């Protein structure tokens, strides 16, 4: 069914929101349009029904009780769970990140016998010169398992500077701070 072009203004008409000039126009139309008449009557009837709907009476004691309890702070605002998580989760994340950061920045104490870490004299000297730290040695030890004899041989033949470059490449590749 094709709806009347006036139908979208019917609520405005019933609620008295239609400008006066349009209202006169609409009322003339209403006399001849049965669809709009039907719609106006239905909406008016709907309003009539809905106006019968009443809010149950509440005794004043209910309000007095809440007011007193709020004023005396017997009941107070509880943060909703999502808000609590919204605050706690970022705080915990920051705390954990700070802890992790502190841990990674901790330098190796050189009181540990270097010889126990590796026998390589170049590495030992790098350690003693504080060019590398314990972490890189640990990483190196892990990597060592994967080193081929050829690479090991190459390492043995490296001088101090070459070894330093090698360690830097390793550290960049495995994201280890030197």
């Amino acid at each position: 069914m094709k709806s009347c072009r006036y139908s979208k203004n019917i609520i405005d008409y019933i609620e008295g929101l239609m400008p006066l000039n349009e209202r006169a126009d609409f009322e003339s139309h209403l006399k001849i349009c049965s669809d709009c008449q039907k719609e106006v009557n239905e909406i008016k009837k709907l309003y009539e029904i809905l106006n019968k709907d009443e809010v149950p009476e509440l005794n004043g004691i209910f309000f007095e009780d809440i007011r007193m309890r709020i004023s005396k702070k017997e009941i107070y605002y509880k943060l909703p769970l999502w808000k609590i998580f919204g605050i706690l989760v970022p705080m915990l994340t920051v705390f954990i990140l700070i802890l992790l950061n502190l841990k990674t920045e901790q330098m190796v104490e050189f009181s540990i016998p270097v010889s126990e870490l590796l026998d390589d004299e170049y590495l030992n000297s790098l350690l003693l010169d504080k060019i590398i730290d314990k972490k890189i040695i640990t990483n190196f030890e892990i990597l060592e398992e994967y080193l081929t004899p050829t690479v090991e041989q190459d390492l043995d033949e490296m001088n101090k500077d070459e070894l330093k470059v090698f360690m830097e490449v390793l550290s960049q590749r495995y994201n280890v701070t030197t």
Partner: protein
Amino acid sequence: MNEDDAALVRRFKNGDTGAFDLLFKKYQQALYSICYRYTRNEDDARELTQDIFIKIYHNLNKFKENCKFFTWVYRIAINTCISFKRKERPELEIKEYQPNPGERNIILKKAIDDALMKLPGRQRMAFILRHYEGYKFDDIGRIMKISTGAAKANHCQAIKKLRVLLKDWL
């Protein structure tokens, strides 16, 4: 901002808790009515009214006077209502009754309850604020933080749906 409300809010901010009592009394019935019309349940409405006043009390010191106090209060109320999760309650079985005229009103009330509860939250709230509270659409827009046009559209949609849902009564 309504002058009386503004003065009361300032008094509260200056430590006069008695000012809150006056604001409470002024808005208690209106807020309860909105909660009841939204939830269609007295227990839920009481619970919501209490929550709303606790939020108002807790946040009143933070209220900036850049909008009307009633807009701020109603905004708290509608947000609390819309985010409220209705508790499951047993449905009142009335289909078996052969209603006499007195019971007809009870059945009509139940039909209105069901119809309103079938509306989406924002449409229901726009309809309540317009039809029962008599607010203009620009006020409803401000309260619901939507445009005037959107407030009007929500209200129109609500009426369209109510016409369908209550067609047996029209």
